């Protein structure tokens, strides 16, 4: 993983301040604030129900926050959601597309929705780039899990957004498909995109993320680089108790969020 230059001036691709989201009486996000720099891959770690997807959903405009501010670059996402959505690409946790459309037609639909003019040859080039040229005439449901994720990522980035949000992008993938997707995510970063991803995988967080935040019960518990988190929390008694030898990122995660099973 290449690191962000310490000396380069950082501009913010995403700025979330004091975000609160509730579902009825249940508070899903409780005062989350986070900044993501340009060309940064930022990971949001948390157990099930911690508030990861709710945070992403609020940024995406799928749920209305109770309070807080969200800025995508220089756009206030709450005041101008359409302009904000034009500046971000989204891969949802479980994505599906119209079942009767072929992959080529799905790409054409989403290109149209983002105002990207594409010819059939242009679409086929895009599909070839993600090694799906043979699947262009298939339905989404006929693809493997890895192929579906590649289609989703292609569509999330079809309009070259400055910010890409990926909700558990490698969940359910085999190691080969996961590595391929990591490569794609890093290539996006290399061309200047900022990425916010949620994951349960500590390996993924360490492999691709510049910084990670741990969230639980709707609150951000800590934010740092993966190595920085280990260094910061290695002497925490809860982390020491979770560790079996040298402290790992997973030990920090378990130490901070507890070892109880979540739904």
């Amino acid at each position, binding site marked *: 993983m290449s690191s962000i230059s310490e000396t380069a001036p950082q501009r913010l691709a995403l700025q979330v301040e004091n975000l609160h989201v509730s579902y009825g009486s249940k508070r899903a996000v409780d005062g989350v604030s986070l900044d993501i720099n340009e060309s940064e891959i930022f990971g949001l770690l948390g157990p099930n129900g911690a508030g990861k997807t709710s945070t992403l959903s609020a940024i995406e405009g799928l749920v209305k926050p109770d309070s807080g501010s969200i800025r995508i670059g220089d756009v206030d996402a709450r005041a101008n959601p359409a302009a904000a959505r034009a500046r971000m690409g989204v891969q949802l946790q479980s994505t*599906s597309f119209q079942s*009767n459309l072929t992959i080529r037609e799905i790409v054409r639909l989403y290109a*149209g*929705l983002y105002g990207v003019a594409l010819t059939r040859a242009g679409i086929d080039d895009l599909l070839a*780039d993600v090694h799906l040229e043979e699947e262009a005439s298939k339905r989404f449901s006929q693809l493997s899990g890895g192929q579906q994720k590649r289609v989703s990522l292609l569509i999330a980035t079809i309009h070259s957004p400055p910010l890409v949000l990926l909700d558990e992008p490698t969940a359910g993938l085999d190691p080969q498909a996961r590595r391929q997707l990591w490569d794609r995510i890093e290539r996006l970063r290399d061309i200047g995109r900022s990425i916010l991803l949620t994951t349960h995988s500590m390996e993924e967080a360490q492999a691709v993320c510049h910084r990670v935040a741990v969230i639980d019960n709707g609150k951000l518990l800590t934010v740092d680089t993966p190595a920085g988190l280990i260094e910061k929390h290695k002497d925490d008694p809860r982390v020491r108790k979770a560790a079996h030898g040298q402290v790992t990122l997973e030990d920090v995660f378990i130490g901070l969020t507890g070892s109880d099973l979540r739904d």
Partner: protein
Amino acid sequence: MTFAIEMSSQPSAPSINPPTLSGILRALLRADLTVQLRNGRALLLTFFPPLAVFYGLSTAKRGAQLGGAIVNVALALTLGIALIAILGYTASVARDRELGVFQRLRVTPAPTWTIMVSRLALQILSMLAMSVVVLVAAAVVENVRLDPAAYLLTLAMVIFSSAVFLGVGQALVGLIKSVDTVNAVGRLSFLPLVALGLFAHSTIFGTTFETIARWSPGGAVATLLGGAMQPAAWSADTWWALLASVLYAVVFAGIGIRWFQWSPR
């Protein structure tokens, strides 16, 4: 600028021009039309039942008691419109919601109303196509031939009638999240909504029942379509049926849009 080119190039300024409304609608309509044409079951549901009902009413011994050939055509159209709206439209919306199709569309710059308008426009187009087929069949089989103005008026009233049943369908699928429940309630509500309309012009079950039937959604639509096919006989009742149809459409669609659940959870 394409993804493929970008992935192999140096850091580049992202394209952040918001899409135009016409471009969004064009993309949605094209995709929805493709989906509609590929769905063989929906096509069968669109054309076969109204033709079967028209044939059944035309050949039944007591069919004439429901109001005659024009009323039979109106009833067949009413049934066809209700089938598309209450069974076809609701099932497709509920299924796509369950799959997460709407959530995926909602994270694009497309305004949420365009997602629904595109689907509704396609349904109205289906209903118009079904109406043309039924009217042609009526002309060929039953020699029910109308003036050009009556044909145009009928197709215009088909749009009003579509709004009634699409409004009912929208309310149904807007308020109920589960696919199975939407399908079950759709089937259960279909019969009273449409069957009542069959007796909007018949006193077989007495005048009270006829009055109730006449002002039910199905009855109002049947009266409206029957009036449109005979412009010379357009009466105060037809105007009232038009008003009732508009009210039904506004109330049901208002409920269905206001409380529409985009997510299945």
